């Protein structure tokens, strides 16, 4: 299929598109990484939570004309609350029971939300229609989508925020400690419930941020969350579990792989490639490509 050699500006454009899109995976992966890090929950409903937040932003815009970027101020705090609520209601009781139950609850939540959304909001694809929805900045002959650039900025801001929290605040340090060794953390007075509530709130809060980004930049429907979750898991595996910056980088890498894969082969094979990379990394470098060796557990 390689019937022509693309000019350099196309390659650059592909790279930019890949990076911009990859941030979406990255931001979802960070949430997964946090939740997985402290609770060992493979939270496959993360993508669906993103879609739920996207609907939040969508309806705020459609019903009350709230600017989607302003809606961050509503959606993200709401997501934080929903996140801690989800933990308290669904996971608090079973968090210690091991993986089958938590995984299944996450799956049940996904099925519940997907279908609830399709009944209440209908299964039609939605997208926020703003004046700048398809506006693109031109930079040295390269087109950069405004909404995706904003999504990128939001993802980076979210990552920096979370990294700062983990690195600089006592609570953040407690979260890191608990994800490294829960028993030791309990011995210094850290309660698992507090850490779990916190990480769930942040994880879902990030989903809220990603949701706003999704609503502004892409079309979505109630069922597009699952693919998001899968891709976020790939990003997570690439970046290494329990590694916030790694998760973002993993997302970026995945985005770039997909962009080039879709260009040089075809759309369908791009997915095959990303899953193949995923399996290969899991098989041969399970600590991730960007693992610093500090926080990743064997």
């Amino acid at each position, binding site marked *: 299929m390689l019937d022509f050699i693309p000019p350099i500006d196309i390659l650059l454009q592909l790279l930019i598109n890949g990076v911009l899109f990859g941030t979406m995976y990255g931001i979802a992966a960070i949430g997964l990484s946090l939740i*997985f890090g402290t609770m*060992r929950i*493979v939270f496959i409903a993360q993508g669906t939570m993103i879609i739920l937040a996207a609907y939040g932003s969508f309806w705020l815009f459609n019903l009350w004309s709230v600017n989607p970027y302003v809606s961050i101020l509503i959606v993200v705090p709401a997501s934080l609350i929903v996140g801690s609520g989800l933990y308290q209601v*669904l996971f608090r*009781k*079973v968090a210690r*029971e091991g*993986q*089958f*139950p938590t*995984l*299944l*609850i996450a*799956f*049940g*939540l*996904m*099925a*519940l*939300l*997907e*279908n*609830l959304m399709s*009944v209440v909001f209908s299964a039609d694809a939605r997208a926020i229609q703003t004046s700048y929805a398809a506006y693109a900045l031109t930079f040295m002959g390269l087109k950069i989508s405004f909404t995706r650039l904003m999504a990128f900025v939001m993802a980076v801001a979210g990552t920096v925020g979370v990294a700062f929290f983990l690195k600089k605040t006592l609570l953040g340090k407690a979260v890191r400690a608990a994800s490294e060794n829960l028993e030791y953390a309990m011995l210094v007075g850290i309660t698992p419930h507090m850490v779990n509530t916190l990480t769930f709130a942040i994880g879902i809060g990030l989903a809220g941020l990603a949701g706003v980004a999704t609503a502004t930049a892409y079309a979505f429907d109630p069922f597009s969350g*699952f693919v998001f979750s*899968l891709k976020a*898991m*790939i990003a*997570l*595996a690439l970046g290494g*579990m329990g590694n916030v910056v790694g998760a973002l980088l993993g997302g970026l890498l995945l985005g770039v792989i997909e962009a080039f894969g879709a260009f040089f082969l075809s759309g*369908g*094979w791009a*997915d*095959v490639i990303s*899953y*193949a990379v*995923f*399996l290969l990394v*899991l*098989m*041969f470098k*399970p600590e991730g490509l960007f693992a610093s060796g500090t926080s990743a557990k*064997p």
Partner: protein
Amino acid sequence: MKTMGQNSKSKRRLALTVVVVALLTAVPGVLDPETSYVVFLLFSAFIYVALAQAWNLVSGYTGQVSLGNHAFFGLGAYVIAIGWSRGLIGYLDPLGMLLAGCAAAILGILVGIPLLSKLRGDYFALGTLGLGEILRLVTIQGRALTAGPTGIFLPSSSFTTIVPYYFMALFLALLATGVTYYMVKSNTGLALVATRDDEAAAAAIGINILKFKVLAFAVGAFLAGLCGALQAYYVFHVEPQGFFSLSWTIYPVLMCVLGGVGTLTGPVVGAVFLTAAFEVAKYYLPEIHPIFSGLLIILVIMFLPNGLVRLRRGRIVRNPKAA
């Protein structure tokens, strides 16, 4: 500690099993299989029993959460579809089904060795989840071999009655339960349980952990492959979306959890119960039943996390009273 009481209890268990199996064997004779929906429901329940048991063997007993059941299920179905559509195997061909099971088992071994030796726990879950997704995407891209997203249509004119399907599914359910029972009772099984409870200890007493995990994974894959093969024969249309659907993994997992992970009867109870519950939900709530199913999953886990047959966690081998 083998006492007389326990012996007689296990005898009673055996007797009960025989009676239940005998009753089930009689069903197609009593109810008209061509018009009775119960026969079909039992058929689907049996397939779920086998699938649940296959997962139970891998995850319930070895503690490795596999999310790749649907990969093997779909692979088994595709072996049948490709083989039959090219005239290599026949209708309800036991050899073909064996082939399907073996193909799944081989894939299980090929994937299992690197995944299980490097990954533990969650990584394994993610890896197996990725496997199903890869197979789905590859079959979509498979052009002539897999007939792409359309899938392969099989000669439905071969179908005469549901009766052979019923018995094959019953056989699969019994086989899966029997294999699980055998493997758990054997030294292999003890090793499996040992690896689940304490890997370091198991390694210390010289069990080759990888070998047993891969074996369990391969046997689970074999059973799932068989189920896929039978389903392919029943539906006469094998396509990527439906056969590599995650629900072929999640529902069996749910059934195991509802019944009791790591118990022999748990998956059986869970599968029968849930097949019936979903059916009723679908009948009475046609437009919102997936909401109900999602809710049911959550409620079951929250209030019955250890399953119906065992309300206490810790000893996984068998139901503590009967063991």
